[in-house]
C-alpha cells in the first residue's frame, strides 16, 4: 500500500501471509474464531436433534406445522435486531441477571464476553440446523426402526446404529451453515463481544477501514481455507445430498 495515495500497489509477495504467521495475536484470533464456530455448531446440533426428531416422528400434522413455523419465523426478523436484543438480555442490568436474582441465584454477568458471543450465535443460527436435521430424520423410513426393534435392538442401539448414521448427513449439512456463518461473522462479536472476542471478520473489517486491503485479503483466506476443507469432508459424508 502506498502511504501517500493509499492506492494498492500490485506487487506479488507473501509478506501479508508472513505477517499473519508471525504475529501471535492473529493466531489466537483465528483459533478463537474456529473454536467458537465449532462450539456453536456442537450446541446447535445438540439442541436441534431432539427437535428434528420430534417434528419428524412424534408430532402430528398440526403440531408439526406449529413447530415448523415457530422455528422458521424468527428468521424473518432482522439479524441485527436479534443480536441487539440479546445485548439487552445479557447486560448486567438485563433480563437474564434480573430473573436469576428473582429466583435467588447469583448473577451470571456474561454480557460482552465470549460466552455471550457463543450464546448469541447459537441462538441466531439454530433454525439453520433444525431444518436440515428434520429433513434427514424425516427421510428415515419407519420400517427401519421397526425392523431394528424386531431384531431385538433396544432404543439406544437403534438410535446409535440406525438413526444416527442415517441422520448424519443432515447434521453435517446444518453444520455447514452454522459453522461457516459463525466463521464469517463480524457483527455479533462487534456488538456483543468484549475486548477479547475479536473474530477474523473483525480484523478483516478493521483492516479494510484502515486501508490495509491486501492484509485483509490474506486474513480472509484463512476462513476460506478452513471452509474448503470442511466442505470437502462434508461432501465425503454425503451432506450435499441432504442439503
Amino acid at each position, binding site marked *: 500500500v502506498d502511504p501517500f495515495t493509499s492506492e494498492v500497489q500490485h506487487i506479488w509477495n507473501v509478506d501479508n501471509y508472513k505477517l499473519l504467521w508471525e504475529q501471535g495475536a492473529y493466531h489466537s484470533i483465528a483459533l478463537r474464531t474456529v473454536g467458537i464456530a465449532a462450539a456453536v455448531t456442537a450446541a446447535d446440533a445438540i439442541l436441534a436433534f431432539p427437535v428434528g426428531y420430534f417434528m419428524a416422528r412424534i408430532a402430528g400434522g398440526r403440531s408439526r406445522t406449529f413447530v415448523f413455523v415457530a422455528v422458521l419465523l424468527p428468521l424473518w426478523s432482522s439479524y441485527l435486531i436479534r443480536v441487539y436484543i440479546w445485548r439487552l438480555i445479557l447486560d448486567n*442490568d438485563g433480563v437474564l441477571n434480573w430473573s436469576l436474582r428473582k429466583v435467588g441465584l447469583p448473577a451470571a454477568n456474561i454480557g460482552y464476553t465470549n460466552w455471550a458471543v457463543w450464546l448469541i450465535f447459537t441462538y441466531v443460527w439454530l433454525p439453520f440446523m433444525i*431444518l436440515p436435521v428434520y429433513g434427514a430424520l424425516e427421510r428415515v423410513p419407519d420400517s427401519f426402526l421397526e425392523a431394528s426393534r424386531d431384531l431385538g435392538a433396544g432404543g439406544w442401539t437403534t438410535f446409535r446404529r440406525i438413526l444416527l448414521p442415517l441422520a448424519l448427513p443432515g447434521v453435517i449439512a446444518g453444520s455447514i451453515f452454522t459453522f461457516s456463518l459463525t466463521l464469517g461473522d463480524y457483527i455479533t462479536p462487534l456488538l456483543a463481544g468484549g475486548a477479547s472476542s475479536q473474530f477474523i471478520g473483525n480484523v478483516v473489517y478493521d483492516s479494510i477501514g484502515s486501508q490495509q486491503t491486501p492484509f485483509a485479503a490474506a486474513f480472509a483466506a484463512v476462513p476460506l481455507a478452513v471452509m474448503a476443507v*470442511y466442505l470437502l469432508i462434508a461432501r465425503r459424508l454425503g451432506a450435499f445430498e441432504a442439503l
Partner: protein
Amino acid sequence: MERRSTRVALTAWTALVVLFLWIPLALIVLYAFNKSNVESWPIQSLTTHWFHTAWNSEVRSALWLSVRVGVTATGIALVLGSMAAFGVARFRFFGRETVSFLLVLPIALPGIVTGIALNSAFLAGHILLSTWTIIVGHATFCVIVVYNNVLARLRRSSPSLIEASQDLGADGWQTFRFVIWPVLSTALVAGGLRRGRRHVLHGRCAEHAPAAHLRLHPPRPAASGRQRDRLRDDPPHGDPRAARAAARARHRGRPRDRCHRTLNVRRRTRNRARRRRGV
C-alpha cells in the same frame, strides 16, 4: 412406537427450544413500547411514541427500496438458478461435479469476504455502486439457494415422468408446462419466498440458503423413487440388520406418486396394445 417417557422428554425439549427462540422476539416487541431511552429491565412505563417516530418518509423509502431490490434479485435468481439446476440434473458433461461444487461453495463463504470481493470486482470493472450493484450482489448469492432447491426437487422427481410425457406426444413446452412446472413450482415458491424476505429484512445476504431444500408442507412419502434407489445402492453402513430392514422397505415402498403411476400405467397399456396389434 417410542416409549412414553421418550415422547414426553422430546416434546418438552422441543417446547424449551421454541421458547428459547421466541422469548427474545417477545422482548423485542416489549422494548418497542419502552418509554425510556435507557436500556434497562424491567421496563418502567409504556408508550407508542416510537411507532410514530419510525413511520416517516425516510424509513418508508428505505422499505420501498428493500422491497424493490428483493423482488428484482429474486426474479433474477429464480431464472438463473433453475436453469443451472436443470443443466446439472439432466445432463452428464465434463466438469459437472465441479460446477455443482462451485455453485454450492459460496454458501459457505463468510459474508464479509463475498461482500468485499464483490466490491473489488465492481471497482475493478469501474462500475459505480448503485441500486443495481446491490441487486446483482444479492442475486449472485441467491442463485445458489434457488439452485439447491430446484436441484433437490429434480432429484426426487423421476426422469421417467418427462420420458412418459414425450412418449405421449407432448412437445417440449407442453412437457414443461404440464409435467415439470407442477413438480417445481412449490420448490420455486419456497426458495423465492425465503430469498425475498431475506432481502427485505436482512440487509445482508450472507446467511443465504437457510434451508433451501425445505418445503412448507410435509414432503412426499418416504419411499419415493429416488429414496429407493439410494437405499438399493447404499444400504446403510453395511450393518446387516439395517440392510435387511432396507430390503424390506424396498419391497414395501412402491412409488405412491399418483401422477407418476398413471403415466406409467398408460404407457404400459399402450405398449401392450401395440404389441398385440403386432406393431
